[in-house]
Each structure stands twice: as structure tokens, then as C-alpha cells.
């Protein structure tokens, strides 16, 4: 049952990710990316990390992708054509194919070096690390510096966005 669920969620994640880059309409790409995040959330649940799964949906699929959607909608991203964009050289297709083949070889080599892990039949072990209490404990004691610095980083980006938007309406016009 776990294996079947794994393959289903993995297929959803991979196929929708391929769809993201294959779709011509950017709005459809954004929606397929959200579907792929849903597949990832399912995989996290299979790995006994419910908090990570739900946080993925809340933050990534729920907030960041809304931002992406606003940008795509309001900045009028055009539907792509079938043909290659102008400006690439004559050997663009061959170079791209070569790089993709190299990447595939590298991925297969890398994955073959990793041992096969089965599913953890003891849920207690994982939930001790991935329970909300445990995550909160380590986040605010061991990694508290990273946490605070990240919050300052987000504050800086928010203030910067407000200033950039404000200067265009007040000073620029």
C-alpha cells in the first residue's frame, strides 16, 4: 500500500513538473507547479513528516505560488510559440540534447550509489524527530540564529519592495 502510494505521488510530482516546462501557457505552468507541490506533500506524509507536508502546502503552494500567479497574471506573460526563440545559435538543439544526456547519466550514476531504503515500519522513530514539538524545540534552540537571520532577511525584502513601489508613485510617475 505504501509502495503504491509512493509511485502515485511520485508520478504526480514528476509528470506535473514536466508539464510546467512543457506548457505554453504560463498560467497553466503555474497551476501544474502547484500540483507538483501537492505530490511532494504526499511524499512527505509517506515519510512520516506531516508537519513538513502541511507547511509545504501552506507556505509554498499557498503563499509563494499565489505571488507567482499574481506576477504572471499582471505582467501579462505571453503564451509561448512552438518554434525556438530567436537569438539562439544554429547548434542550440544539439547542445541542449547533449547537456540533457549528460544530466541523465549523472543522475543515474548518483542514484545507483545510494542504497535502497525500504519504508520505515516503525512510525515512532520518525515522529519523534518530525513532530511539531520536536521541530519547534530544535528550531528555537539549536537553529535559532538561522531562524532570526531569515526573519530579518524577509523583513529587508519586504521593506525594499515597499520602497521601490513607493518611489515609483511618489517621485517617479
Amino acid at each position: 500500500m505504501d509502495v503504491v502510494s509512493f509511485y502515485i505521488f511520485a508520478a504526480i510530482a514528476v509528470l506535473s513538473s514536466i508539464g510546467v516546462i512543457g506548457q505554453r501557457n504560463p498560467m497553466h505552468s503555474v497551476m501544474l507547479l502547484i500540483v507538483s507541490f501537492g505530490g511532494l506533500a504526499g511524499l512527505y506524509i509517506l515519510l512520516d513528516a506531516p508537519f513538513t507536508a502541511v507547511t509545504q502546502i501552506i507556505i509554498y503552494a499557498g503563499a509563494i505560488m499565489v505571488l507567482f500567479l499574481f506576477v504572471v497574471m499582471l505582467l501579462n506573460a505571453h503564451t509561448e510559440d512552438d518554434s525556438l526563440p530567436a537569438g539562439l545559435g544554429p547548434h542550440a538543439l544539439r547542445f541542449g540534447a547533449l547537456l540533457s544526456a549528460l544530466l541523465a547519466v549523472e543522475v543515474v550514476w548518483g542514484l545507483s550509489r545510494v542504497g535502497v531504503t525500504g519504508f520505515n515500519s516503525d512510525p515512532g522513530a520518525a515522529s519523534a524527530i518530525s513532530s511539531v514539538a520536536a521541530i519547534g524545540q530544535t528550531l528555537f534552540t539549536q537553529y535559532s540564529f538561522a531562524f532570526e537571520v531569515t526573519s530579518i532577511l524577509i523583513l529587508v525584502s519586504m521593506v525594499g519592495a515597499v520602497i521601490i513601489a513607493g518611489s515609483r508613485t511618489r517621485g517617479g510617475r
Partner: protein
Amino acid sequence: MTPLLVAQLVLTLVVFVALLSSAAAMVYVERKVAAFLQQRIGPYLVGPKGLLQPLADVVKLMFKEELRPRAADALLFGLAPIISATAAFAAFAVVPFGGETTLLGVLKEPLRLQVADVNVAVLVIFAIASMGVYGIVLAGWSSNSKYSLLGGLRSSAQMISYELAYGLSLAAVVMLAGSLSLREIVTNQSGYWFYVIPKWYIFLQPIGFLIYMTAGVAETNRAPFDFPEAEQELVAGYHTEYSSMSFALFFMAEYINMVTVSAVATSLYLGGWLGPFLPDWLGWLWFLLKVFLLLFFYVWMRWTLPRYRYDQLMEFGWKWLLPAAVINLIATAALVIWLG
């Protein structure tokens, strides 16, 4: 196929049907309450006291022509009401509406009156509320009409702004209860102080309750925060171009979101299914009563209070409600640490 599994499947079906019926019942309740508040009678022709009016509405909506503007993006236009309705139904899956029951001894293990008992239920509700924004954004954009786009953008900006105050008031309750599971939050509210006052969190968190209900009303785009749907300004906002069953799906999603916000508020603040005189397995009667009270409050507010203007709405959410929620959280944390 153990009896417990069959019972859980039947329970899921029962909850689904109950939610659908609650949407229909809310149509009737809204029209009747609105009528009485405006000193008129409301629907009275269809069935006794107009009770079959929702049925007539559903039949009318089913037989209308399904329209789509030619320039609309077909896939997203059709997908948007589905996303809205699915998110509305899915959020109710983690709400507990009763204690445990063995169905009078038929089952060997007790069946919990909840569709899915997850131990991060509060976060799941928050996550599904975030996903509900997409239905509105996509409806607004894919209709390819200026009223829809403006309504959709305003509505989604309003929803993501009020999600913050919503989440912070949830966090304060989680701090009091020490758990993210809704079932545990409700069971922590059992018992009485001085044998008379029930130990509900509304008495410990009055400000938090008000913040939660305000943010919940804003999340569901109901008055006085329904500027995105304001008929006078925007025709009908993001669902202008929809008709027939797609419109019915949006309509239903709005009512079911109201039911879910009320149900979560009763679980968090009003003690869920707990109440005097009834055994645990009949607790769902108390639950229904409390949810109905909150829904009546919702409808009452719509037909009493004037609508906020959009900039006033956003200013209220960011400059007043969010700081209030943060202060509530800090005060709760201080009290939990000092009083244990």
C-alpha cells in the same frame, strides 16, 4: 473490509451529504433572517413557510444555460469553481463533531465522529484555506472581464491579508491546548469552573475569539468584508461571468466555508461537542446548535452592518487586526508561562 472501515466510509458519506444540505439550508436561513431583519416575510410560497425554496433554487440553477465567454481560458474557467468547492469541502474533513461511538455495540473499536483525525489538524485547515484563494484568483483572471479581474484580485488580496490574523489567533489557542489536533483541543475544554462555567477557551481568549471570527468573516468574503462581491460596484466580482452550476458551486463554496469557519470556531473556542445533559456520542447535537448560533451571527452581521470600502478593509486587516492578534499571542504566551 472491517466493520470499522465500512463505518468510516459511511460517516464520510454522511458528512458530505450533511454539508450539501447545510448549504441548501443556509440559503433558506439567509433569506428568511434577512427578511425578518428588514421587516418583511421572505420566501413563503414554495412549500410550507417557504421551506422548499432551496430546492426550487437548485432546480433553477441546474436548468440554466451554462455560459462561457469566448475569450475565457476554458480549462481555468472550468477549474476555478471546482477548486473553490473542493477546498470548502476538504477543510471540514478534520473537524470533530462528536465524541467516540461504538454504534450501540456493533463495532469492536470506537468510531471517532470525525472524517480524518490527523494530529496537525489546525495546520491542515490553514493549508486548505490557503488553497481556496486559487479558485477566486483563477475565476477572476480566466473570465477575461475587467469586473471579474478586479474582483478576483481584490478578493484574493483580502483573503491572504486576513489569513495572518486567522493563523495567529489559531496559534494562541494551540498554545493554550498544547496540541495541534482539534480533537485534543476540544477534550481539553471539558470540565467546569465552580461547577457552572464550562472551561471553554472563549472565556480564556475573548479577544482571540473576536479576532478569529473577524478574520473568518473576511476569509469567506462575507459582509461587512464583501467588497469584492459588491453588487453596486463590481456587478458580481469574480463570479460575474459564471452561470448555472458553476455559479452554484461558488455559491455553495461560500456557504460551506462559512460552515467550516463556524465549526472550527466551535471546536477551538466553544467546546466543540461538549455540553451538559447529553452523553458524548450525542455530542453532535450540541455541536450543531453551536454552529447554528455562529451561522446566525454571520447572517445577522451581513444584513446589519454596512460594507467596508476596500482600502478601509485592507487598512483594518493590516494595521489593527494583525497587531491585535500578535499582542493576543504574546499575552497568551506570557500567561501560559507564568500561570502554568
